[in-house]
């Protein structure tokens, strides 16, 4: 009787122990030294999550006992969870590895100096595209593993251009004024708009100023640089000219943006290389597209025909398990050239690891783009991207600039508009 009771008690204890254990692993993020699992947060199942899964598979070949789980959250959720977790000082529930957009990276690195693990000893910053380093490092320490390239290009419909009497060469290495000129011609001859724009997204302006090596903030990353920013002024002027040319199809969200070119409404798409899979999603337009360098600002001498938009990098959080996580990143995304070939062919990710560009996949011709070696073409542009410090406040300043742009379009003086934006930014970002 007594024995049976003891056995019962023991089994209850055992069961409850099992229960609490499984609970621990279920919470996932809290990967203490007891749990060897590495947790990764990312947001796009068709892009960065798919790429990460390839990395996990590649790592499993050599380190079969290291478990890596990739969790999908919306980008806004990741930012919110990171802010909440890091603010509260508890690392409970946070992942080992997180993907952060380059525009936001600095704000995290600066706001939470000890929250991220220094990867300087795991990877070599010089192995990656130079323009990615500024956003993913702080005070000389490399915190992020640069991931996808944000190198931008001008996607053009060769058939529409042909109808209007232009060739691809006519759009190669041009400036925005020439672009507008062609746009008017194309609209007049074919009836198609030249591009889509969302009034709430100044991505085009960002690309323009980065092509001139300028940004919303000065090189320190914090001081707003709006008033008397020549590149910005040029970009604003160009933007207004574009709007007034009446060749812009106005969209209000991402799906309308996609619909704009998939439905054949517009003749060009000036954006990052990551749009390639979306363009190719419309199989009926195969062979009708080409990619040319992004136009540059005419009145800004520093502007080049290369710029960047978007892009993100992987960061290791300073939580238990960081060594394993750093090693995982170093051996996969930090150095594995073959992995980058896979990511390009299977997912469409153009990586920023310089060595990867030497791989076969990066030299493949793409029939969709009329046999153009698109990825290979992107490489030199990537090298030319002027390096800027995105700083902490890219989106905050853009929120100020969006209405000011409307004011400017509405006829207000450009200097006044930028001066207003400058003062707002200074007061808000103190």
């Amino acid at each position, binding site marked *: 009787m007594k024995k049976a009771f003891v056995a019962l008690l023991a089994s209850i204890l055992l069961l409850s122990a099992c229960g609490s254990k499984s609970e621990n692993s279920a919470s996932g993020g809290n990967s203490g030294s007891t749990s060897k699992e590495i947790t990764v947060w990312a947001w796009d199942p068709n892009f960065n999550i798919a790429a990460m899964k390839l990395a996990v598979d590649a790592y499993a070949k050599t380190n079969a006992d290291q478990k890596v789980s990739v969790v999908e959250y919306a980008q806004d959720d990741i930012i919110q969870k990171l802010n909440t977790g890091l603010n509260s000082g508890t690392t409970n529930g946070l992942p080992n590895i997180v993907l952060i957009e380059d525009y936001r990276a600095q704000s995290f690195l600066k706001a939470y100096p000890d929250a991220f693990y220094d990867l300087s000893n795991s990877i070599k910053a010089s192995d990656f595209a130079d323009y990615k380093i500024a956003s993913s490092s702080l005070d000389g320490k490399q915190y992020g593993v640069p991931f996808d390239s944000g190198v931008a290009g001008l996607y053009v419909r060769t058939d529409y251009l042909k109808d209007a009497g232009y060739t691809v060469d006519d759009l190669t290495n041009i400036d925005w004024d020439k672009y507008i000129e062609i746009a008017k011609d194309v609209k007049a001859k074919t009836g198609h708009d030249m591009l889509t*724009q969302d009034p709430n997204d100044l991505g085009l302006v960002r690309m323009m100023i980065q092509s001139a090596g300028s940004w919303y903030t000065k090189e320190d990353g914090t001081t707003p640089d709006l008033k008397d920013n020549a590149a910005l002024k040029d970009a604003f002027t160009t933007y207004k000219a574009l*709007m007034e040319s*009446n060749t812009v*199809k*106005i969209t209000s969200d991402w799906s309308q943006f996609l*619909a704009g070119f998939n439905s054949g409404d517009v003749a060009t798409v000036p954006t990052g290389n990551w749009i390639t899979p979306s363009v190719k999603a419309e199989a009926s337009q195969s062979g009708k597209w080409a990619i040319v360098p992004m136009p540059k600002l005419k009145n800004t001498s520093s502007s080049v025909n290369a710029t960047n938009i978007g892009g993100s990098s992987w960061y290791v959080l300073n939580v238990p398990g960081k060594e394993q996580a750093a090693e995982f990143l170093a051996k996969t995304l930090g150095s594995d050239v073959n992995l980058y070939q896979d990511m390009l062919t299977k997912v469409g990710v153009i990586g920023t690891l310089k060595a990867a560009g030497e791989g076969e996949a990066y030299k493949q011709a793409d029939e969709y783009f009329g046999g153009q070696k698109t990825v290979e073409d992107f490489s030199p542009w990537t090298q030319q991207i002027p390096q800027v410090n995105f700083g902490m406040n890219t989106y905050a300043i853009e929120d100020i600039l969006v209405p000011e742009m409307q004011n400017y379009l509405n006829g207000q003086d450009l200097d006044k508009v930028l001066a207003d934006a400058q003062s707002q930014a200074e007061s808000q970002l103190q």
Partner: protein
Amino acid sequence: MKLKQSTSRFSPQTLFGKIFVVMVVSTISVALVTSLLMVQVSQKLFMNTFSITNTKIIQQIKNSFEDFNYDIVTVSGEVAQSLTVKTFLTEGDKDSLSNNFSVYRMTDQMEHILSSLDINEVGVAIIGVNGRSYFNNRAYWTGTTGELKGSTLYEETIQHPEKLSYHYFKGDEETSDQPLIIASKALRNPSTKEIYGILFMMIREKDFRQFYGNFTSTGNDVVILNHNGQIVSSNLAGRIGQTSKELLQSAENIRTQNLDYMTVSTSGASEIVLADYLQTYDYYIVNLIDKKMALEKLFPAKQIILTGAAIVTVSLMVIFIIVRRVTRSLRILVRQMSSVTKRNLHNYITIGGSYETRELGTAFNYMLDELNDYISQLVETQREQRNAELAALQRQINPHFLYNTLASVNILVQRGNKEKATETIRALISLLQNTISNVSETITVEQELINLKHYVFINQVRYGPGIQVDYFVSPDCMKAQLPKLILQPFIENSFFHGFMDRTTGYIYVMIAREGGTLVCEVVDNGTGMDLEAAGSRLSNPANKRQMFTGIGVRNVHERILLLYGEHYGVTIESKPGEGTKVRLRIPWLISSEDEA
């Protein structure tokens, strides 16, 4: 024997058995009835409090739904009144700059309107008749604008343009497999009633759940039904999208009959259903409580049964012991009493046990006392009566005897035989003297022999000396005591019956001691008698004239029995023609004087 006793104790015939059976039955039934009543009362109480708290909970849920609805209504009102929105949805396509302004103003306006929403998780979509559309977040409707426009939702909203209505949209590709609850409202020109757009406000079912999710637990579920009985939202994820006419029926009954709750049996399980109607949504909030699960928490049936059984067992054991002790003295009493009736009246009962049994025992013993007293008194009285009778008989000297004797003396005197006459008179006097004196006195054998000789002498005077009487007496017996005139009746019997038809014969009288017994024999060689026939003659002497006293042979026997008990008495052996032998046994007694 013992086994038999113990089984008989339990048999329902015994007092113990009866009491015990009654106690067992009543204990168990009292325990059962009490626990059943308690369970029922507390169940009822529990149900009432449960329904009250859950009604309050439902009220709270209802309030949060209403709050949400108020937000939705506010937003839809503002959207409907917004000129910017109307312009965006009605104007035609213009140049890029104008379109830019229109889109910017629209988004700006919508952001402003939506900022008043407390709940973030709402996807807003507006589709205009001019083909323009607005989405604040494409994550809710991942399908195309055309798909939304082509949905039945769009049609239904156009059909009922006057009201804000809620729809359930089953998860599909268009919504990333997430079920949605969509509030839709047609945007109309106030004056012309012309529809210029449709406003959709989408909330994911899992976010919809947050209005009641905190109140649910295992066995306590919430289900939101639309007017078709379709489950639009529930914490039971598996039931979302199903249609339950049963639940709808219960909810409608509760609403129309104003019930607190209903008990419904669905698929074998009994469920308590509470419901409330959400007027603005045309939805029912239904609270399902698994009765078994809820009550199991309150009444662990196994524990109750075990505890009850333990209490009943213990009380039965106590009852067993008490009843046994109470009835024990009674049982002993009964056993003792039954042995009294079997044997004799001197078996008194040991007094003990409870008050009642002690009283009973005392009364019983007292009764035995009385009975014994009465019996001994009776015996004594009878003995005295018999003694008196015998004494009377003894003293009753037959007048014929006197007459005959005196007549014989008279003849002797006339004949001049003076000496013989004198001797006869003297013998008579001695005889009479003995008779008159106390009949119960004993005399010595010697004296009795003198009396006998006197009697024989008188008889020989009357009837002649033909009958010879001889005495053989052991010398040690001369001093032995015996009752007076105890042998005389047998001599008399021999004279008058044995020698009735003869004048010669002999009679022997022999007295000897045999241990503690004095044996006297009177033997004659007379005619004898048939003993069976003689019985009547002995007891009822035909010729009383011949007898000396009233004592007959039979009386002698009775007298001996009376004096000395049944070990002593008279035996007679006789056959016709062979004479009679009378044997008389009395205890050996010697008077204290003689002994000394």
